[in-house]
């Protein structure tokens, strides 16, 4: 009976698709503690604007890794000598002023990063 096999195959494919949808589609997540120890330097961004336009995801990925490995010791020194705690809260210290800061571009470019699966999104802040 090939039709039975086809049905089983279709069911398996559907489950895989549903799993993919659920695993990658969740845009909201658990709330983590956004509080940071020191008040971040708000005089300017760590890198020039043009660099951050194209490379911010790489910086965030590196920061995530370093923060996970080094904890409070994960501190970066910007090219101009200023020091920043490697923490998403450091970024949001300035950039959560505009609640749409992340989302207006990500929506336009159809990018769906998985930051907010764990971190609280500026859109969800009170």
């Amino acid at each position: 009976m090939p039709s039975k096999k086809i049905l089983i195959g279709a069911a398996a494919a559907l489950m895989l698709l549903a799993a993919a949808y659920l695993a990658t589609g969740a845009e909201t997540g658990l709330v983590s503690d956004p509080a940071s120890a020191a008040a971040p330097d708000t005089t300017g961004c760590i890198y020039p604007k043009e660099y951050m336009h194209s490379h911010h995801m790489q910086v965030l990925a590196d920061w995530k890794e370093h923060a996970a490995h080094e904890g409070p010791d994960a501190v970066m020194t910007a090219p101009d000598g200023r020091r920043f705690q490697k923490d998403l809260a450091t970024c949001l210290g300035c950039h959560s002023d505009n609640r749409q800061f992340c989302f207006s571009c990500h929506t336009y470019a159809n990018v769906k990063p998985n930051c907010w699966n764990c971190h609280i999104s500026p859109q969800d802040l009170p």
Partner: protein
Amino acid sequence: MKKVFLPLIWVALLSCIPYVGVAYFGMSYIFGVVIPYLAALLFIGGFSWRIYDWLSRPVPFCITTTCGQEKSLDWIAHQKLESPATKWQAALRVMTEVLFFRSLFRNTKAELHTGPQLAYASSKWLWMGGLAFHWSLLVIGLRHARFFFMEPPLFIRLVERTDRFFELTLPAFYMTDALVLTAITFLVFRRLRDAKLRIISLQTDFFPLFLIGAIALVGMSMRYVEKVDVMAVKAQMMNLLSFSFAAPVEIGPFFYVHLFLASVLAVYFPFSKLMHAGAIFLSPTRNLANNSREKRHVNPWNKPIKFRTYAEYEDEYREKMKKAGLPVEKD
């Protein structure tokens, strides 16, 4: 080895042209606006012309290739896909061919062993590699819709989500990226490994593989390594889609390499073996129904034959036949 390295050098040269042009001579308008439009025009024109050319060729005979029982008496099982009897069955057979490479699945290899003994065996590697290559390219093409639509259709978003299922890196890793590179590597080495295949492979077999490989590599490097500003890329692609001739804003030269190589591929497409994409739908051995015992297929350019019936013959010679005492049908 000239036929392997020459296409490789060509692809390398083609990648350098836009890089040098944009990075050192500021020719971003030519590579970002003029060439993509020209390439799109040539692609659409060339593709349509090839299809029109093939469609206007007559198909005088029923030459479908089959490998199964054709429709016969009721008590003989008809294999609908192997020997389609109707247009719909033939269409279904073409679609299974296009989507799953059914006939390649039957690929066999012949090996001469000591003895001498000739052995045949099933060989599914080409089928698997080809399937991985083509499906990855399809998924990658669909994924690019995010640059062409403000909001891609749900189906495409679903495909894209499934593709980055593993969420390995921060611009999420796409599995088709790895798949397509693996498949291209396999397809190139398949042609190089076997002496028989090396002999029959031509420059035109290697060039598209290298070109598509280069496009994929540059595209991937833009995503994972040497980043470009995605906002500017999207703005530029939306510009092109709305037929605007506005100058592109500052984007990294890798984007122009990617776009230029894709333009080269589009121009190369209608004039090369890549036209199998359109030709597979038009091959008479595949898309015809095997109904030569049900329907009479007449060659359209057969000259009309002048027949002379016996009645006409008798009309002409009746008197003479009567005189000679021959029997006639009509008096």
